[in-house]
């Protein structure tokens, strides 16, 4: 590296300050002439050595600033110019040793030589690595499938960081998927709880109603406290189960949902069953409130002898609801892993819309 060599020169010259002969002076003069071509540094004829040194440093820094993309701070344009003086300087060093016995009456010129060969890089050993900072280019070449491919170094560094730091992987999409999977667990619990609760509810109602519904008064007296809370809980569980079933079939994508219904997909079938059960259950809200108000009821609300007329459809609908939710739970249980919305969330990033960074991989 020319810079290092010139720096070595400087140290050597400092050691042999004021001891060099006339030959050296000639070389330095030619060197100075080439330097004086530089328009940035108009030098006085005989300046002080320290000032010259400072000027040279400023020159070097300026040139480096002009060529920031060159590795190690070297300047390609100057390589040809620098090589010749360096060989001359090594020669000059040998000659300087040979002329040690000469008098130092040409001290000013020797100072010039030292200043001319000076470098802003501090003194170091001959075989050490250069101090210039490497300036990496924008691409690295990675061997893939027995060939090298260019890759953006920022992209590669980013992927390495992701590998090193797992927190970087936690994106908004992962948060959404975590929420979705948590709700799926809740829905799975809701499916089973709703099926069991509906079956228990209808068994209690039929037991209280007695054989051939002969004890409906007993049912009203015993069940009126439970009627409204049972209806509310049924609605809550039905909502959770229905939303979970809709999630499984990805109802928002109409084509996918329709295909599921046509092919009798378990998730689509369960969604349909839950939705029918929900509407049937909601339609019994009036009767449930009527049962709830049985103790305080007057004859307009519960006319005498109207119990069977009011309660029979209510019991049948509750039976149908229990069968539907039981069937839906059984259908969901056959394929509990189906979740098209989750698949949609997972593939959302690559499906049809490639990201910009993916397109930056340029084959070499």
């Amino acid at each position: 590296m020319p810079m290092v060599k010139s720096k070595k020169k400087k140290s050597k010259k400092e050691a042999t300050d004021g001891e060099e002969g006339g030959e050296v002076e000639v070389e330095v003069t030619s060197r100075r002439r080439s330097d004086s071509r530089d328009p940035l540094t108009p030098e006085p004829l005989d300046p002080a050595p320290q000032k010259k040194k400072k000027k040279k440093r400023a020159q070097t820094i300026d040139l480096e600033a002009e060529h920031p993309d060159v590795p190690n701070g070297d300047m390609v344009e100057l390589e040809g110019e620098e090589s010749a003086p360096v060989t001359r300087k090594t020669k000059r060093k040998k000659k300087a040793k040979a002329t040690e016995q000469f008098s130092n009456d040409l001290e000013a010129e020797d100072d010039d030589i030292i200043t001319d060969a000076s470098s802003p890089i501090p003194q170091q050993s001959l075989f050490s690595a250069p101090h210039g900072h490497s300036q990496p280019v924008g691409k690295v070449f990675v061997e893939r499938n027995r060939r090298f491919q260019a890759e953006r170094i920022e992209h590669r560094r980013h992927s390495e960081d992701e590998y090193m730091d797992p927190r970087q992987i936690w994106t908004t999409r992962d948060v959404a998927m975590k929420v979705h999977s948590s709700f799926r667990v809740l829905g799975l619990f809701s499916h089973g709880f709703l099926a069991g609760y509906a079956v228990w509810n209808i068994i209690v109602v039929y037991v209280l109603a007695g054989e051939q519904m002969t004890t409906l008064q007993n049912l009203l007296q015993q069940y009126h406290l439970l009627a409204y809370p049972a209806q509310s809980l049924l609605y809550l569980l039905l909502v959770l189960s229905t939303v979970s079933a809709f999630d499984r079939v990805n109802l928002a994508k109409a084509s996918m949902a329709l295909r599921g219904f046509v092919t009798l997909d378990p998730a689509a079938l369960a969604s349909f069953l839950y939705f029918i059960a929900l509407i049937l259950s909601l339609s019994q809200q009036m009767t449930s409130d009527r049962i709830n108000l049985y103790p305080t009821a007057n004859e307009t609300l519960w006319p005498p002898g109207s119990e069977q007329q009011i309660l029979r459809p209510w019991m049948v609908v509750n039976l149908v609801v229990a069968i539907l939710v039981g069937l839906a739970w059984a259908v969901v249980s056959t394929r509990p892993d189906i979740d098209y919305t989750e698949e949609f969330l997972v593939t959302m990033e690559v499906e049809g819309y490639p990201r910009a960074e993916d397109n930056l991989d340029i084959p070499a």
Partner: protein
Amino acid sequence: MLQTGNFSLVLLIQLTLLAYDLFVNSFSELLRGAPVIQLVLFIMQDIAILFNVIIILLMLFNTYVFQVGLVSLLLERFRALLIISALYLTLSICFHCWALNLRWFQSNRFIWTDGLQALFVFQRTAAVLYYYFYKRTAECMGDPRLYEDSLWLRNIFTRARQ
């Protein structure tokens, strides 16, 4: 770019409001000891629905897709939620006004008519669809592509200009 922490916080708020809405829909009929209780519950429920709609709209406005002017793309994706939210809010307000009007002077009386029953069924059914679409949209808003420039967005933008 949407930060993960911010998105988690917004998602938590949205799900909390949804949970409150579900709670009121499920158990408001049980909490009718005094008409003012239902009044407060219903007002808060309607405000929660409104807040949820405002939050989702703000999130839509915050996307890069919206900022570059591709509103049609967002509408195409989230039109169902906006329609169902508006429908559900309307049905809820109507049902709340009707039920409270009938129960205001005597909270524990039988108020059901065929019309109120039909409105109740529609409101509660719309609620289920609202929960589903809202939850799905809130999750879809975590899509990182909505918040940054990309090739597919440029393609859509070029297509839209043509």
